[in-house]
């Protein structure tokens, strides 16, 4: 044990770790929002609800089918991603030619419906979800105690983020995707099924949210309102980073998580609001966002 700026190292690194965990979720969620926005020009307000559905999917798979954490990590995003595909086909597709504000209102309405339904069935209190056995416990690093599960969350989230970045920026499929974002009509003329690509992109963004939900289930309790407050913070993250760049979304997400964690140590009263304050400052200094290209 030693002290840094008069703060015990355990507390400082503990909060730093918590910040990295939150940052993992910010990064995954803002990445999903950026991917969806790039392709559909829609801000997906349902994202928070879909994150919550991911956590519930893991919980229900365990309760009713005895399916544990590891399979749920794959099954839940697939299931929730499939519901995303349905939502895109049924609703979002009809709004393509309209002002994007309608997309925001529609997904907001959907978020209310989903949250309301889950509250009806499961109430408002949190439901516990156990850390998988293989990741129980932790190790002492000398300056702090590192629970295995939390280390896993950070590593997995980083891996998924980087894989997504690689997929979009460095592969052939990703180049189609980027091209379709720039000029869908031209890409269609090359014989690529753009509408299907749009649908799958939405499904993928939703699956990312659901994956974050499964990862969050053992850390926070599973509850119907776990997504709605988080999504507003993620919106601020997206405004700070700007949605023009995939890497920008990832870096901003992790960085803001850490900043929030540090604020909890040095100035706990401001920890809820620090991200919003940063957003206001960024808007004053650099209105397009840190990684944004245009307003």
């Amino acid at each position, binding site marked *: 044990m030693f002290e840094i700026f008069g703060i015990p190292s355990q507390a400082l690194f503990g909060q730093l770790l918590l910040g990295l965990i939150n940052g993992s979720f910010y990064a995954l969620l803002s990445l999903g929002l950026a991917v969806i926005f790039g392709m559909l020009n829609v801000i997906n307000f349902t994202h928070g609800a879909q994150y919550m559905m991911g956590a519930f999917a893991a919980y229900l798979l365990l309760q009713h089918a005895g399916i544990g954490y590891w399979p749920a990590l794959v099954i839940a995003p697939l299931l929730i991603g499939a519901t995303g595909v349905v939502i895109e086909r049924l*609703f979002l597709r009809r709004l393509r030619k309209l002002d994007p504000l309608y997309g925001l209102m529609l997904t907001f309405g959907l978020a*209310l419906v989903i949250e309301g339904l889950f509250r*009806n069935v499961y109430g408002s209190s949190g439901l516990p979800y156990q850390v998988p056995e293989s990741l129980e416990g932790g190790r002492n690093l000398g300056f702090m105690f590192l629970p295995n599960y939390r280390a896993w969350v950070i590593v997995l989230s980083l891996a998924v983020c980087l894989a997504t970045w690689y997929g979009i920026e460095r592969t052939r499929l990703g180049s189609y995707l980027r091209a379709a974002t720039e000029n869908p009509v031209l890409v269609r003329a090359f014989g690529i099924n753009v509408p299907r690509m749009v649908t799958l992109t939405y499904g993928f963004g939703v699956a990312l949210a659901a994956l974050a939900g499964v990862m969050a289930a053992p850390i926070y309790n599973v509850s119907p309102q776990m997504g709605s407050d988080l999504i507003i913070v993620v919106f*601020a993250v997206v405004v700070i980073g700007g949605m023009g760049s995939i890497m920008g979304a990832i870096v901003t997400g992790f960085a803001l998580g850490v900043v929030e964690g540090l604020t909890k140590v040095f100035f706990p009263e401001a920890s809820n609001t620090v991200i919003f304050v940063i957003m206001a400052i960024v808007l004053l200094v650099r209105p397009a966002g840190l990684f944004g290209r245009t307003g």
Partner: protein
Amino acid sequence: MERVLDEPVLVRRRNAGRSVGAAFAVMVALLAAAPFVVYPVFLMKALCFALFACAFNLLIGYVGLLSFGHALFFGWASYLTAYAAKAWALPPELAIIVGTATAAVLGIVAGGLAIRRQGIYFAMITLALAQMMYFFALRAKFTGGEDGIQGVPRGRLFGFFDLADKTTMYVFVLVVVLAGFLLIYRIINSPFGEVLKAIRENEQRTISLGYKTERYKLFAFVLSATLSGLAGSLNALVFQLASLTDVHWTMSGDVMLMTLIGGLGTVFGPVVGAFLVVAMQNYLASFGQWVLVIQGAVFVACVLVFRRGIVGEIAAALRVRL
């Protein structure tokens, strides 16, 4: 950017003023007769929200800006009015001015930040700023945290009219709301309002015509925030309560729903929408969380198949402007 109103209503220009005048007369007559039939507190609540929705509509309907954080102005005005009336024992007219002025100041700050970005970002920024101020309200001492400010005295208006009396209070609320309504109607039909509509239709072109659109947008935002604050202040006196519900994001969602159901960019739509949503919340209150589900479903339905809203549909069918 595309406009929010995708299907412009064909209007015979010379009839425009007449149809609005007739509808206004009907509305005033209905509101004057209503307290004999309907529970006055319900009516006063609906009236406050009608003003709130009209103020919100000023932005989305006439400038094309979707603010997702209007609860900020409604709620904080409500807190300041309640605090001024209770802790400083100010008479109601001054308490309302304190609340409304607070909303105006918050409008300058939030609007100044939010108009730096367009479209979808504008919505996200206003939402985030409102959430920040929600946390302040949760933390601040004077707001009473989870309890809110309860037992706010209504006091005597101008030292003469006792607002504790239900009828007097109703008349007062009705007069203020109608004044706000007429002010908004005047604004959207002024030269200033025409510039706002030009910004809605095509901001780039408006800039090229030499208008400083940022200033127009900011002024419209501050007006909208101020009138939302007036609605919040009234609401605090009606219920003698200011609470966290008034600053929560669900309140911003409610006002958006009211305007959408009634008809974005219509003069009377927000009023109709406010009465419908308040009635719905009132009668469905016993169904608990189903209210949330139904509201969400109405949202989805409106966006998908009913974008003109009730008043917009009526106006289109009659080929008049309402």
